[in-house]
């Protein structure tokens, strides 16, 4: 396997993009990434497109050739492959793109992620995303995706003394970071009192504990590291790409407050890169719900099991902390276009490692982590990126 570099990044604004179609946002992100990489589309070998549910959300399947077509590439006849893994679809697409370049099957590929959630009513979107959990044995009985994560939160509070205020602080920090991201769905800052007083969704989680439904797309261009200097002065090495799966239903997990898929994917990723959690300075982690972020910090190895709540409130994961988390605003503030999330996380890490993150920049970041989750953790994906000097 050869070393793989990220040569270009692209991303649309996230939000309720009512005036823009799925194909428009998909193409915008992809073309931005190609321009950023200074790569000719003639050189491309394939497109790997992460998407959760275009069939249910916009009645359109078979979307990879559609994006290639409207990007002006139909005549090149390169391969277009859609990849699905619930909310982890984008990160899975990156994993497939990495495999293709690392193995030598392709030299240059585009990895995309795109989702359009606001063309359907919220109730319909809620039904679709709950399908990323076990429909037959969770959804049919009345569970929703936030209800399942709420049960993780309740048990975490019971086992470790995590408080409602500690959960709420995750959302406050997300909006603080997102206020500095021009692509974010929500750029308003929110107070702890606002999170605690928001209308309940599934107790103990309220509306401001839950990431929004967003439209958006993001894209990356990958190529072999040994040829990267031809295209960019700041190649970012994809140091690890790992996927792990677990039981479909939350109720079948070994432990209700641990995502073993994340634990295993992270361990494999740190082994692959020969690094440890202590080496990471910036991380984009899955905060689809405030509890998701606290559990992720523990499962990724940044803090002991059960200790994420107090650590988070102490500022360990804010600016100047040991790891600065979700500088993009995370899913909560930057937005949650499910299939695009995993790719957008990597776009943010690349910007941080290149030193192009503007007033979100974390000084001296040389190793970054991206963590994406499908459902309640049936799939976790962990990527490590590092600056090459």
């Amino acid at each position, binding site marked *: 396997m050869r070393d793989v570099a990220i040569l270009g990044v692209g991303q649309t604004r996230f939000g309720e993009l009512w005036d823009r179609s799925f194909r428009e946002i998909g193409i915008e992100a992809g073309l931005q990434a190609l321009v950023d990489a200074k790569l000719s589309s003639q050189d491309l070998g394939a497109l790997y497109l992460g998407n959760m549910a275009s069939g249910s959300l916009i009645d359109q399947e078979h979307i990879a050739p559609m994006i290639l077509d409207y990007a002006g590439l139909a005549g090149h006849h390169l391969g277009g492959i859609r990849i699905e893994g619930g909310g982890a679809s984008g990160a899975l697409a990156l994993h497939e793109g990495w495999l293709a370049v690392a193995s030598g099957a392709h030299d240059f590929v585009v990895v995309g992620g795109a989702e359009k959630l606001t063309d359907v009513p919220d109730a319909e979107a809620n039904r679709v995303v709950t399908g990323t959990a076990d429909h037959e044995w969770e959804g049919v009985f009345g569970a929703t995706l936030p209800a399942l994560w709420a049960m993780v939160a309740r048990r975490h509070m019971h086992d470790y003394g995590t408080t409602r205020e500690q959960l709420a602080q995750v959302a406050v920090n997300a909006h603080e970071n997102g206020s500095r991201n021009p692509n974010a769905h929500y750029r308003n800052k929110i107070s702890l009192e606002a999170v605690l007083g928001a209308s309940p969704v*599934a107790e103990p989680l309220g509306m401001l504990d839950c990431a929004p439904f967003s439209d958006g797309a993001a894209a990356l261009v990958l190529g072999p590291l040994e040829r990267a200097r031809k295209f960019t002065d700041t190649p970012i090495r994809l140091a690890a790409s790992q996927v792990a799966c677990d039981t479909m239903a939350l109720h079948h997990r070994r432990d209700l407050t641990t995502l073993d898929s994340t634990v295993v994917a992270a361990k494999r990723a740190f082994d692959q890169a020969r690094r440890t959690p202590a080496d990471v300075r910036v991380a984009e982690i899955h905060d689809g719900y405030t509890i998701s972020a606290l559990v992720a910090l523990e499962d990724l190895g940044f803090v002991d099991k059960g200790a994420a709540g107090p650590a988070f409130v102490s500022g360990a994961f804010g600016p100047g902390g040991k790891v600065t988390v979700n500088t993009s605003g995370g899913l909560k503030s930057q937005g949650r276009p499910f299939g695009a999330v995993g790719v957008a996380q990597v776009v943010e890490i690349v910007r941080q490692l290149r030193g192009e993150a503007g007033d979100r920049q974390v000084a001296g970041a040389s190793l970054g982590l991206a963590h994406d989750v499908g459902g309640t953790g049936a799939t976790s994906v962990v990527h490590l990126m590092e600056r090459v000097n």
Partner: protein
Amino acid sequence: MSIARFWRETPRRYNLGGCRCPTCQTVYFPPRSVCPVCVNHRRSIGRMEPFQLSGEGEVVTFTLVHEAAEGFEMQVPYVMAIVRAKEGPQLTAAVVDIDPADVKIGLKVRATFRKLREEGRAGVIHYGYKFAPMDATHHPPDRPAGGTRLPATTATTTTVGSEARA
């Protein structure tokens, strides 16, 4: 959801029919065709035995749902829980016949046969298990202790017109 898709699962959803691995004796719900625990798990293929859960268990975590799943809008707010069955497996279900403020981790519950939801005015009504507290002190006076017992035999999907309460 099509009628066949719901109907084919009725032995599990109506009667908590699970299975047991003949080698390691682990009980599963819903039934599985392969034992995930046994080291040599392929030997279990075709040998898993039917096993009936008693319906008794305890709440291991729960939530009070305010934004309903599709078809559950009339039931908000409703309690969803993960219940650990006495025989070992865990499952997700609603907890009923109790003030939501009284639901606690560790609450002893028993399965009860209830209406889950209906698919619109002319659609199929889905029935299945919910859980009610075993301790009679939790019960409203007009409801029997432990709720309605699960039917003794496998029933088929019932369509509109049934009186079962949710």
